[in-house]
């Protein structure tokens, strides 16, 4: 969890307090003595006293503990007032209260001087103590919303600035300015820097967000700092669909020009890898290049959407997300049979085009056998332990299906999002009753929800927290399996979090980066780089009735998807706004299949029949038959998801030295080059070295060699060369090229 550096430091808060104009606080100063929750707690927050590095840590600091960011006001009151009576607060002589003496460093304080006796924070605390350090009565209004003065700022040049004003809305309808009590941070200080008082300044071109936190609320505003306008002219590229309209609108606003459209060769390779998880064949290449029709890209997309490769690709992606992994340890209920059943079910759903919301809903509400049905394995594979522990399961479900990481709220209200501990424990209660019992055969476990199980208990006061959807108000009715209500809420078309999470993951798969990135860290403080795009993608997915192929079709048909990787002067530095295609290393399984296909040597995978495609592989240890060891190493080096967690980062995308070395000297390529007989066949079939080299280029890179490349290679070969070893060297070079290993 990135904790912005602006929050981590306590130093200089005295200065911060001094900078806060008395007017800001004075404006909200109550006529009556300060209230504990309304006035005193915000001081602890603003001054950093209840931060994780200070008294907010799990065990407190120097013998004094506050709840992290103030999630437990009742406990905090008790610790301040009741834990050491007369010491931390001295109502007779308020200035002698340890609380104040420490804050102003009148006695030794590890945190140093937090504010001065002249600061309004000091006055708030002193007045409260002087009033007898009263606790609030039950009717004290709660903060229910926090609003910023503006939601977006655009600056034409660096150096310009503005300030945020933060207003808290209370449950009794009242509002107050809490700018002086809030804390601020910027997501990208190289674009905009913000100070402790919400005043910010543009530092360089780009777009980012600034945030204010007050209480359990984090709210943000977008800040765009435009590059220089001189020499920029919008070229008005044609928009194919809504995606282009939104992306280009944004680019125009940011003074970024999109790259040009990629050529047919690049498109064919890109879309075939993306949709069918393989390289185009030589025949497909020739046929596509010979096709002069203007709609040939559109038709190719439709053709590939119906391919087995598309099914396998998305089966594997979901299987990874769902941590489908067979083991030999029966009590975990993840034996190979269960894993196969799950994989088979996912495949059938992807093949039939089952709406993704129905696909998810069936799993979430699933009961029954883990081997005669696939969906119950949601509760075996995602858990992969002897017993179902509802807390990590709830966190995983949230992360996977909503993109939201709620686990922070197990111990304290989420520091960078809106989720509270109440939200967390109520969500956990959807899973507290999940049980497994033995089935009718030894490998089988049956999943059911035990409705007599108590709901999760709140960490602070052990209150039972009945199952309630995230952000919901009323718990779901007790006495029956609450997962049905969860599945309905989760997968409803109007659940923005769900539809945008799915849409964002699909987008990221095809574009190499999510509109929110990482795709499974959706929070207020990690907003989409193009909110309109994410919203449109989510709405479109819902409009398409959660048809995966439908959204993929829209994305692939967009000009945005078909842009070249080659940048221009304006978009060279853009990594967030999809102004050019992103170079993406092939997934480990797709790369291995590509090697298999071009060399004609099938892969061997542990416990799978020879000839299984890597993209159809899912790890399942059935005791090990000694086969496929080299593929295991390949997968490891190229970062195939080990499926140990639901995190999207389990699949490694970055290139490494080990990968380059694996291809250069490893078994995977070395043993395949000659044994497949591809080169020998070409040498026998093709009349000229040119023809052989061209075929090898098309086979591996989906393009003809450039004249320079051809010339160099022919010079190497000599006229009429027929030595297969020579062409094997060329073949080896092509397969070791960056161009082969990347989708571009």
């Amino acid at each position, binding site marked *: 969890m990135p904790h912005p550096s602006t929050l981590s430091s306590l130093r200089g808060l005295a200065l911060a307090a001094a900078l806060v104009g008395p007017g800001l606080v004075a404006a909200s100063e109550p006529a009556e003595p300060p209230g504990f929750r309304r006035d005193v707690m915000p001081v602890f927050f603003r001054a950093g006293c209840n931060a994780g590095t200070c008294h907010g840590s799990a065990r407190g600091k120097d013998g004094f503990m506050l709840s992290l960011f103030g999630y437990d006001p009742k406990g905090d009151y008790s610790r301040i007032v009741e834990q050491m009576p007369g010491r931390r607060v001295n109502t007779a002589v308020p200035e002698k209260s340890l609380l104040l003496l420490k804050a102003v460093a009148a006695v030794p304080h590890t945190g140093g001087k937090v504010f001065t006796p002249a600061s309004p924070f000091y006055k708030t605390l002193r007045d409260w103590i002087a009033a007898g350090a009263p606790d609030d009565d039950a009717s004290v209004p709660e903060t229910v919303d926090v609003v910023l003065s503006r939601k977006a700022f655009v600056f034409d040049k660096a150096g310009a600035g503005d300030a945020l004003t933060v207003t808290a809305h209370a449950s009794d309808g009242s509002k107050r300015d809490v700018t002086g009590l809030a804390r601020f941070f910027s997501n990208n200080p190289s674009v905009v820097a913000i100070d402790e008082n919400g005043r910010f300044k543009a530092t360089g071109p780009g777009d980012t967000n600034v945030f204010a936190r007050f209480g359990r609320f984090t709210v943000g505003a977008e800040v765009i700092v435009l590059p220089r306008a001189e020499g920029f002219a919008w070229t008005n590229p044609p928009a194919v669909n809504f995606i282009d309209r939104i992306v280009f609108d944004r680019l125009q606003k940011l003074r970024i020009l999109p790259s040009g459209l990629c050529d047919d060769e690049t498109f064919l390779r890109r879309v075939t890898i993306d949709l069918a998880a393989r390289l185009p064949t030589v025949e497909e290449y020739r046929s596509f290049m010979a096709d002069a029709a203007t709609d040939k890209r559109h038709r190719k997309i439709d053709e590939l959407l119906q391919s087995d490769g598309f099914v396998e690709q998305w089966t594997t992606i979901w299987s990874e997300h769902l941590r489908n992994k067979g083991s030999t340890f029966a009590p975990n209920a993840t034996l190979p049979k269960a894993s196969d059943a799950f994989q088979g079910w996912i495949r059938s759903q992807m093949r039939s085009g089952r709406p993704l919301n129905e696909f998810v809903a069936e799993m979430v509400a699933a009961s029954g056998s883990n081997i005669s049905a696939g969906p119950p394995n949601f509760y075996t594979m995602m858990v992969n332990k002897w017993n179902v522990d509802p807390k990590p399961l709830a966190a995983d479900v949230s992360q996977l299906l909503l993109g939201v990481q709620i686990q922070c709220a197990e111990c304290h209200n989420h520091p960078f999002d809106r989720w509270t501990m109440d939200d967390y424990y109520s969500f956990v209660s959807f899973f507290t009753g999940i049980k497994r*019992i033995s089935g*009718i*055969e030894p490998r089988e476990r049956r999943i059911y929800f035990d409705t007599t199980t108590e709901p999760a208990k709140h960490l602070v006061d052990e209150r039972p927290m009945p199952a309630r959807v995230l952000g919901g108000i009323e718990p779901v009715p007790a006495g029956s399996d609450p997962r049905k209500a969860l599945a309905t809420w989760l997968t409803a078309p109007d659940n923005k979090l769900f539809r945008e999470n799915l849409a964002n993951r699909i987008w990221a798969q095809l574009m190499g980066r999510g509109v929110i990135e990482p795709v499974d860290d959706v929070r207020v403080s990690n907003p989409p780089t193009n909110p309109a795009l994410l919203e449109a993608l989510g709405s479109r997915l819902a409009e398409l009735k959660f048809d995966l192929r439908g959204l993929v079709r829209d994305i692939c048909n967009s000009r945005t998807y078909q842009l070249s990787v080659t940048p221009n002067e304006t978009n060279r530095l853009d990594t967030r706004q999809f102004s050019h295609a992103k170079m993406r290393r092939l997934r480990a399984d797709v790369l291995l299949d590509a090697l298999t296909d071009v060399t004609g040597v099938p892969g061997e995978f542990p416990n799978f029949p020879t000839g299984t495609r890597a993209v159809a592989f899912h790890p399942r240890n059935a005791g090990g038959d000694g086969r496929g060891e080299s593929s295991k190493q390949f997968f490891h080096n190229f970062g195939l998801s080990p499926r140990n967690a639901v995190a999207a980062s389990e699949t490694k995308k970055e290139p490494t030295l080990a990968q380059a070395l694996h291809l250069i000297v490893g078994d995977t390529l070395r043993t395949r080059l000659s044994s497949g007989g591809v080169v020998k066949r070409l040498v026998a079939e093709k009349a000229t070295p040119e023809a052989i080299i061209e075929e090898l280029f098309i086979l591996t890179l989906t393009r003809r060699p450039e004249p320079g490349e051809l010339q160099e290679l022919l010079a190497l070969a000599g006229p009429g060369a027929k030595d297969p070893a020579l062409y094997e060297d060329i073949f080896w070079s092509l397969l070791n090229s960056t161009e082969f290993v990347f989708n571009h």
Partner: protein
Amino acid sequence: MKSLRISLSLCLLAALPVMAGNFNTIDQVRPRIGQRGTTVEVTISGDYLRGAEEIAFYRPGIRVLSIEPQGKPPENPLKWRPALKCKFEIAPDCPVGEHVFRVRTPWTLSMAATFNVTPLPVVDEVEGAKERGTKDNDSVASAMPVESGVSVYGLMDGRASGDRDVFRVPVKPGGRFTAEVDCVRISDFTHGHGEDSGFDLKMRVLDAAGKELAANDDNALHVQDPLVSFRVPETLPSPADGTPGSFVFVEVQRSTFTSYQAPYALHLGDFPRPLAAFPPGGPAGETVPVRWLGDPLGGFTSPVAMPRETGTFRHAGQSPTTMLLRSSAMPNVLEAAGEGGTRVDSLPAALNGIIGKADEVDRFRVLMKKGARYRVRVFAAALGSPLQPKLQIQAPAADGKPADPALVKFTAEKDERDVFGISAYGGGVLPEAIDPSVIWEAKTDGEHLISMADLGGGGSPLSVYRIEVEPTRDAIFTVLPNTLYWWEAPKWASLGIPRGDRWTVNLNLMPCQGNTFKGETEIVAEGLPKGVRLLPNRVPAGAGKWPIQFEADADATLASAVIALKVRPLDPAVQLESGSQQNLPFLNKPGGDAWKTVRLDRFMLAVLEKSPFSLEVAEPAAAIVRGGELAIPVRLIRRDGFNEQVGFQCDWKPAGIGGPPQLVFEPGQTESVLSLSADLSAPLGPVPLVVTANTKERGDQGWHGDGQIRVSSRILKLVVAEPFVELASQPDSVRRGERKKMTWTVKHKTPFSGAAPVRLVGLPKGVELHEPLPLITSGTKEIAFDIEATDDALIGTSNGLTCELAVSQAGQVIRQRSGRGILRTDPRP
């Protein structure tokens, strides 16, 4: 056809992994199926099959016409492991399904093995055929053509690329087509190293264009064995080779890839394959109309005659494989429509219903009397229902107060289901154990509510259940403790009685759920062949295990017989039900549970050739005393030049009596001694003692039950008595170089005559005991040992000193240990 079948069998034989320590008397039986009304050549391979004289089935239907050992005997005939080529004549009315048999040789009765009977003609799979121009049958294009209405005997082979078998079957458009696989259910693979999944097949039915028409992997009815039954589309694409007619293509594959071999049967035709029956049982001896559910052409009803004998039984109907139904000693109650629940007029009753849709709850209102105890048993998964039963019993509200919390149960232990004796490595999961079975004692008079739902909130038109509610009964089953790890251990389970000799087994006595009877009983045998006797026995109250001994006359006919052993109370007024059980786990895996269990309700016994050796053990004339030892002479009588090693042991060890593991008579040896010990808490009084002996063809694996020829001593009476004396001493000390007396007091417990020498044992290093040893006679009150500590004596305290008394009585020496002394050794002053 025949030649291919043999080649299949040989192929399997060749592929059988060699497993160290394996002592299966039968490794495999090939082929696995035969059609009734035909004669089939069957090859049985395994150990100890030389000289096979009889193949004895547990039920009628198959007659064995011939048994021929294969190959020539080696020089040492004891090492001959011939496979047997047999001819099975299967009667036209032979029951379909599994037939269990054992092989009787002159010297042993084999472990159980199985053969399966189908009503359909058997066709062997031909993987590749010249006439078809194919090298395999792995695709629609290369499918093997077969007729409809056959059972294909196929082999899922172990190739690395994974086998696929495809069969082309003619079908009638619009008609029913059924395909059922038997693989797990006909397997005879008793041990696995993760190969179990190799027997788990899945099936798809495709049209000529490769479009899937139906598919199945696992199902509630046949578990791992797939089945499909569907209405054939009115139009089907024609096969690529232009063969006229309508065809479907049945593809059989492994569910989870492994590289092991598995033979299977694939039954194909237009026969009905109901997936559930309603009601799934009825009153014993009555004919009940049963509605068959899950048929693609709509359900149908047919009468089923319930057997007179109560229990679960197999019903074949019009299908080539059977379904399980219940015959019960109670009337049927069928669930009635309506919200209020079904009223049940009287108990006992069998409540039958279907949880037809998700979240449905069926309720039965049942009158119960306060204090009455009922056994409430659910049958659902046990009969192949997809229901995961959740049984709930709710007492009526009394005096306006809330009723007791409802009893909710959704599973049962095996012994609650009256299934005993499966003590393989993992315990064995059985479908029955997923169905609850409880004892319910009514605490109030009135209308109780018995309800049923699916635990996971599911429900389907096939989710049939039956709840049998009846007053508890007393019953004790006799069970042979028959497995060790994954095998049936012959030493413990086999009932082979040598002519003119005897054999003993330790019989487990297992009370049924709700049994209250705990009195004295005896075991009686039913169906013993002439010339064989079960020797009189008397089983103490509450015994869970007891040795019983059979004896065969010298001229008893060499033959096998299926018998029952029953528990009979000594008090003739007591009503006690009894029966026999032998549950043999098949298709096991290490650390796991059996996929398949052969269930037998009778035992097989055989009269064997006279053993070339006998055991003679004289009844001990003296008692063994608590804390004492008793050496019992054992004599081996060798005959006819038999001079092999013979192992012997005391398999039956009464509580508190210990003995050595297997001892051996080496060649030429005929005398030995068995030393027994009694611990201080051994129950007093007479207990049975028996010694068994066996040949040791395969070395030191006696604990397995290895050995081909086995005999038993008579059951002897061993008396456990109080110790003769109790000895005690005060803590004492001795200095290095000092010689002194260590004094012990003597308290007499059991009188003995003469003088018994006493030795002090457990002295520390360097402290010596000088003779003469003290003697104890009837009047001795105190004894003193003469001890001396040398300069090497270990300094410190030793607290393991005890006295060993040797009492000579009735010609035997009985050793007794008593007392615990402490001696400190000090340095010289």
